[in-house]
């Protein structure tokens, strides 16, 4: 049994695997499927200040080793989350050290600020600022491409944010290293990356794009090597200053360990939850088994060792 605990910004998480936003609901849905207590955290479905129906038309398409989604930040709004889903999440996580990340996305800067203020008045452990949703025009990706835009929104949210602030980055960023640096300069306490990759599919019978928005977000094992490269770059840029949380196609303990060896403090698991509802627990156990076999007692021993 290795020590899989992770110190994330002063909070000790029971494990290195955080369930990624949008793939794990509010954790409640998985309460009978796995032991939520082994997770480092659960990141909520992406929240916006006001409720959102999400996108019309097709929302899902399987691809080789991947999944394209166009959900469009469907969520009940920050206030509904605070009154309903958050207490249920707390109940499901009672007695565990598993952190709650409130993933906040969408809208104009004022909406981000107001949403953040409301969430900071609750007992969520972290704010994960989503500047990377590719499926909503103002879902944040507008801020996630250019470092200057990111700096503006992160800076403004930082001013009202009293919780540890994680900024979730898009792989569409023009320059990953510059983007990570801009987020940190603007006050991010940590960065998580990557969100989904902008992708496209065409329905031959209809001779039209599958998704109403034409482009949608690709995730899953297909993107993992690219995500790992980007995490490597982000660690290179800001790893000495802040924790980097790595995600993108992680489906096994070995995958997760690659991100840790690239320098990630912790990892998030998303699409793998759909192929295996117990993926977060299995991946944690697989990391443990590999470490045991190789005499590695804690993640600190191997974090960034590949660099």
């Amino acid at each position, binding site marked *: 049994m290795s020590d899989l605990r992770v110190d994330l910004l002063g909070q000790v998480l029971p494990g290195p695997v955080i369930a990624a936003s*949008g*793939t*794990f*609901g509010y954790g*409640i*849905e*998985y*309460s*009978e*499927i*796995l032991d939520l207590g082994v997770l480092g955290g659960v990141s909520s*479905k992406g929240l916006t200040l006001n409720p959102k*129906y*999400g996108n019309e038309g*097709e*929302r*899902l*398409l*399987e691809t*080789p*080793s*991947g*999944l394209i*989604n166009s*959900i469009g930040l*469907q969520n009940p709004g920050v206030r509904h989350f605070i009154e309903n889903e958050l207490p249920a999440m707390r109940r499901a996580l009672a007695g565990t050290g598993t952190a709650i990340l409130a993933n906040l996305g969408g809208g104009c800067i004022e909406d981000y600020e107001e949403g953040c203020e409301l969430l900071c008045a609750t007992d969520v452990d972290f704010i994960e600022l989503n500047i990377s949703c590719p499926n909503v025009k103002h879902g944040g990706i507008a801020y996630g491409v250019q470092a200057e835009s990111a700096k503006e929104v992160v800076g403004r949210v930082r001013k009202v944010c009293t919780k540890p602030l994680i900024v979730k980055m898009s792989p569409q960023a023009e320059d990953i290293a510059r983007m990570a640096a801009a987020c940190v300069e603007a006050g991010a306490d940590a960065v998580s990356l990557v969100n989904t990759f902008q992708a496209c599919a065409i329905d031959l019978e209809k001779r039209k794009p599958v998704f109403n928005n034409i482009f949608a977000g690709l995730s*899953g*094992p297909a993107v993992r090597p690219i995500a790992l490269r980007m995490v490597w770059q982000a660690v290179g840029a800001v790893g000495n200053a802040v924790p980097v949380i790595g995600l993108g196609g992680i*489906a*096994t303990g070995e995958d997760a360990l690659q991100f840790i060896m690239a320098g990630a403090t912790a990892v998030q698991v998303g*699409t*793998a*939850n*759909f*192929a*295996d*509802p*117990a*993926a977060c627990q*299995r991946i944690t156990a697989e990391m443990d088994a590999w470490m045991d076999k190789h005499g590695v007692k804690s993640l600190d021993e191997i974090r960034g060792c590949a660099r």
Partner: protein
Amino acid sequence: MPARCFDAQVFSRTQVADSIQRLTVRWPESVPLPHAGQFCMLRCWEHDEAPLLSRPISIHEVWPTGNDEPICQDGEQLDLVTFLFEVKGIGTEQLAALEAGDFLQITGPAGNGFDFSELDAGAKVALVGGGIGTAPLYQTARELAARGIKADIYYGFRDEPYAMEQYRGHFGTVRVATDSGRVGFHGFVTQMIKPEEYDLVLCCGPEVMMRRVAAMCAEKDVKCLVSLEKKMACGIGACLGCTCKTASGEGKSVCKHGPVFDAKEVFA
């Protein structure tokens, strides 16, 4: 009750028609038995094998239901759950290759099924199905029969009906229509059913058929429940990939809030 995820053993698997398979599994005692209209996410390939997603398949039969004679093996009473599905692609092809004794992964029971708890024993109920949409209606008929309600059956198929022989005995009249006219009524089920003869109509099939049945029921002020089908990633309400719009404009998950809805709620 949140869904479980467990391995179950195949009890039997038979081909029912050209591309229609019947898969029966031994249901573990530790998991509550599903009921009519619910479904499960099925997977008999590894998490790192294609396809990425498990397949949502509706409950066709739960044994025992009501006064069913228990099935015993080695002195042990078995709970059996049957799925009837159409082979459409690489997921269902693998499910169709399962043999007795094999294991598969099940996530479920998922969703809310047909709720007829408010019906009294004298209620008149019609089950209207089209194609593979008839699959969940068999267990529905069985659960109704266990409550003393003999539901009338209206099923439509393209050409050749399947899984019909089991409707002998405890049910009401059975009417079949085929598009080709090869068997039964030549035409659509919507031409056979008179909603005003019923207190409740339960419907599952192609959306165009369900919309038509729902409209006919609405016209006669008869309650109509429909079971929707959508692509799903998680099957348990987490991914929001299967959202449908309700009359109020609110989005509901077909997997978690459905798949059964009041037709008025989803076919506004």
